[in-house]
């Protein structure tokens, strides 16, 4: 059944080109869509987009027909998943990759890098990443994505953070860091304080995770759907 639908899809005359997303939504248990999914991974890499659904679908197909697995594509998927942190996408992918494949050198490296990020060890991460340029530089946008994750974790944790800690987390120093801070001050509400003899202190915007007052306010709000339940009673 699935195969016929896929064939019909490809024959579709002059009109709807079936997107990969549609294939994954409506035809996901069809081995014939494997090449499309593989090409889509390359697309994601070059156009700096990301689709967890599609990549999981491909890893599943590799699981079903292990002789068709491409290590290179799996590595790309894992790097993209790493870039999606704090989402647990990297683990989700690992659940679908056989143990003996995970023993390969490039995957062991990626697993170690993931471990550093999961446990806040940013210095070790950037050291490790610089030693594995060939893996991570194959995917544009990698550095920015990880910096984004680092800032996310810092925003959960700190109201005020010393410059050195920030520098280590996002792997930016000196003039580049100054420029980066300027940008954040202008666009993201960061504030720079001068601490007594200790260097700069960066004040991060308050949110419900680093500010107990904001947390309390969000906790007591009732979702609109619950409130609408009593409208018939009140009328």
């Amino acid at each position, binding site marked *: 059944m699935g195969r016929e639908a896929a064939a019909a899809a490809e024959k579709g005359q002059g009109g709807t080109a079936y997107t990969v997303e549609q294939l994954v939504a409506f035809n996901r248990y069809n081995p014939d869509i494997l090449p499309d999914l593989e090409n889509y991974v390359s697309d994601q890499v070059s156009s700096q987009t990301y689709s967890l659904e599609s990549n999981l679908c491909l890893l599943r197909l590799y699981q079903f027909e292990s002789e068709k697995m491409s290590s290179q594509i799996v590595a790309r998927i894992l790097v993209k998943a790493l870039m999606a942190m704090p989402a647990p996408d990297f683990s989700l992918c690992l659940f679908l990759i056989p143990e003996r494949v995970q023993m390969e050198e490039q995957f062991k490296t990626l697993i170690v890098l993931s471990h550093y990020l999961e446990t806040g060890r940013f210095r070790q991460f950037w050291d490790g990443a610089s030693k594995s340029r060939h893996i991570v530089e194959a995917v544009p946008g990698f550095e920015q994505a990880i910096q984004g994750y680092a800032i996310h974790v810092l925003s959960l944790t700190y109201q005020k953070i010393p410059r050195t800690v920030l520098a280590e987390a996002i792997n930016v120093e000196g003039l580049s860091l100054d420029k980066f801070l300027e940008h954040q001050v202008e666009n993201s509400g960061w504030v720079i304080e001068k601490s007594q003899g200790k260097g700069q202190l960066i004040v991060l915007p308050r949110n419900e995770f680093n500010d107990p007052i904001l947390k309390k306010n969000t*906790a007591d709000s009732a979702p609109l759907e619950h409130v609408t339940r009593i409208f018939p009673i009140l009328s």
Partner: protein
Amino acid sequence: MANDEERLQAQDLGYDPNFVPDPVKTFVVHLYRHIREKNVYEIHQMYETSFQTLSERFFKDTPWPSVDAVAQYVDNDHVFCLLYREMWFRHLYARLTPTLRQRIDSWDNYCSLFQVVLHGVVNMQLPNQWLWDMVDEFVYQFQSFCQYRAKMKNKTEQEIALLKQFDQAWNVFGVLNFLQALVEKSTIIQILEQEKEGLEQFTSNDGYDYNGGSNVLKVLGYFSMVGLLRVHCLLGDYHTGLKCLEPIDISQSGVYTIVIGCHITTIYHYGFANLMLRRYVDAIREFNKILLYIFKYKVYHQKSPQYEQILKKNEQMYALLAISLSLCPQSRLVDETVNSQLREKYGEKMSRMQRYDDEAFAMYDELFSYACPKFITPSAPSFEEPLVNYNQDAYRLQLKLFLYEAKQQQLLSGLRTFLKVYSTISLAKLASYMEVDEPTLRTILMTYKHKTHAVDSAGKIISNADVDFYIDDDTIHVVESKPSKRYGDYFLRQVVKLEKVINEMDSIKLE
């Protein structure tokens, strides 16, 4: 062909597959009639009770009579024979060990049965229990086949030849595509959506069709969503499994709660998937609800053939709850009844797990291994020498990754202990208490924040920390975790409750 085989079997096994005891004859005749007359109540009685009684009495350790022997009593009705065979195989799997040939034949029967249903020519109303059992058994036999196939070491030449010849039997693509086809052809997802807007009646009719039609395709489609959740969990694809379940709103009762086996299977896999996705609060919440439900209502199922399964899943979910609470302590999510049961069964193990020493990981290993689904390797085996058993590979991978995650949280329980004691503390001081240097402490603090702030299905960050903090330069400020009084929620619930009471009072007629 099949008849000859069975006659040979009769000589081998000392029973005659063509012998039909009178009570069995009566059984099939009546069942056939009730199905034709769409008498769902009677069908259910015969299916749940009579079938079990007859099995106990005549077929304790032999199969039921062959379908060829009973066909004559039911007008050789094609569909009835498919249904009978389905029950026949289910009985076989439960009481005996199926041969490879029988496994393949059972697959063929499911193919025929599902094709008939998918073509929409079935005009029956069957009890929900039976329809659920069909889907449940289908997935179970798939899982059983994968386990069987993965044990290549002692396979005979005959078995290997059969496996190569019938490589489509219980093929993972086939299984998934059948379940998906049932979901799609029944349009159950659209039906459920339209029901929310009052344009359809499905749940309110318990899935039955009161317009002279059939409930079979619709309800099979509905249960197939749970089937898909289960298969995806067996493959380790938790994200997609949960997506398949999405159309069913588990915060309310529905057709899935009508059959207790379905209810339990749904929540068990939902909870397990969320546990692996690190959404511990979601897992805890649902485990708590179902464990309370089982506690209250299991007494009503003592006589049912599902009772043992209910008890087994109950125990497994307590183990999963113990794991979830050890990784993510919560003080307010667990009902008192469930909590006391939990303490009784796993109190000691939980305190050991939270110590995060070597013994702790042995405990995590033990509980996870006891409670996890029977993971499968879906790909076809390699027939090259040497033949190996690889039936444990999938389980070993999931266990390994789970323990890996647990290990990453190792230093967090120590941190938690200190956070509970102080309202503010300098980084330097805490570092010295925890016997680490400051940079290491900073990484531990960030790990704590990262691990206690999960990403939900919509991509939003939700904190599940029972104790929280923020850092101001070099001082940690602990945030008191006093339970926030949710006034809004409370008032809403009381308003609805009062309205209900008033309505009930209004409807009472005084004499």
